[in-house]
């Protein structure tokens, strides 16, 4: 009976939180079709291994770990320039002058190593705790924290550089 319950909990979670993990997948590939592919792939993996979810209260970090890994796999397999959809170009592009800085920060974020980028994304955009992030990335919590603060410094430095350049 237990696996069946797990299965149902996972299914419910997948349906209820679809927008959140879609956004996470999207943040890696920046286009709709690839993000949907990742979502589909991650769901299959999750349902195939729902037995490995020992503690149903940890379902979020359990599934996000699958999404992150699936996204990274996807990027590795499709090694090419990550492309940006038209609508994003409009938002990020130079049409509004005050968007310039955001665009640079976005660029800086994209330039970070994938693990650092994932940490920033989960911490700031998904409001996850360091502990959850450590579980998702299968890393020591201190490693995650160190990475996080290094990345923050890096982003600032890069921004300062850009400011000087202007």
């Amino acid at each position, binding site marked *: 009976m237990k696996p069946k319950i797990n299965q*149902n909990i996972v*299914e419910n979670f997948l349906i209820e939180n679809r927008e959140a993990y879609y*956004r996470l997948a999207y943040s890696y590939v920046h286009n709709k079709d690839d993000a949907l592919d990742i979502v589909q792939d991650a769901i299959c993996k999750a349902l195939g291994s729902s037995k490995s979810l020992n503690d149903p209260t940890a379902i979020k970090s359990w599934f996000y770990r699958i999404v992150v890994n699936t996204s990274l796999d996807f990027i590795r397999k499709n090694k090419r320039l990550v492309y940006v959809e038209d609508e994003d170009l409009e938002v990020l592009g130079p049409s509004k002058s005050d968007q310039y800085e955001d665009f640079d920060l976005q660029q800086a974020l994209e330039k970070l190593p994938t693990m650092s980028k994932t940490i920033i994304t989960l911490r700031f*955009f998904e409001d996850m705790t360091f502990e959850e992030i450590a579980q998702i990335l299968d890393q020591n919590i201190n490693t995650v924290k160190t990475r996080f603060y290094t990345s923050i410094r890096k982003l600032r430095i890069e921004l300062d550089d850009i400011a000087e350049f202007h």
Partner: protein
Amino acid sequence: MKKLYDLKNDYLKVQIPDELEFLVKKSIMKKEKNMKRKRKFLTCTASVAAAAAVFVGTINISPVAAQAMSNVPVLKDLVKVVTFREYHYEDDSHELDIKVPQINGLENSELEDILNDNYIKENEQLYKEFMEQIGNEDNLNEKYFALYTDYEVKTNTDNLLVVANHKTEIAASGYETVHYNNIDKQNKLLITLPSLFKDDSYIELISENIKSQMKEQMKADEDKSYFLENDMTDSFTSIKEDQNFYINSDGKLIISFDEYEVAPGYMGIVEFTIPTNVLQDVLESNYYIK
């Protein structure tokens, strides 16, 4: 730092495609169906192969072995359920997968004809409704939905054949139902729940037993949940007179509830095995229920 929070807004503003919901539900359904099929296939081959190996040696020696053998599909008897017809349809936003079962081998039986006719009619109706709903090529309905039906032989013993008909509809949310036909193979009868009992006191006996099973399960496992609060309007009070049920190969009565009927959606379809000693006093006989 503040700029990062602006980035967060961009992140949260990412447009959610309309097809996401459908894709998620479809992926879940597909995976579920594949797993079911895989399991069924594996258990089938394993038991048939094992039975075939010992079959020649034991069948004439021991009557016990012969009887045990009769529970193994394929080697058993001639009554079986096959796929009579399949419907399939798929476009970007709709999917239909219908399997029409057909019962074979209930010799010259009116019951077999009636049941098979019903299976065909019901599924044809579902197919027709589905195709009307999606519209035609010039005027395709843009709402996402899917419909799947499938069948399963739940019990197949010397006396009994139980065919389960599963139906799953996915639209705003997924909804799964199942209906059982309990067939007496010898007497060519369709068994109804009231026909098993002397009078209608079974309704209360079974309901009370289910309630205490629900309580026990919730106590033992906090992941489980049933609608059992006294002050809730839609909480479970009693089974229906003709509640969905089937008899398993051990002769036990299983009461089945559709998704959402007595429990939140994540519990799916729920079943309760009713101990025979609870029912013994009101049972018509022990022919089916043992």
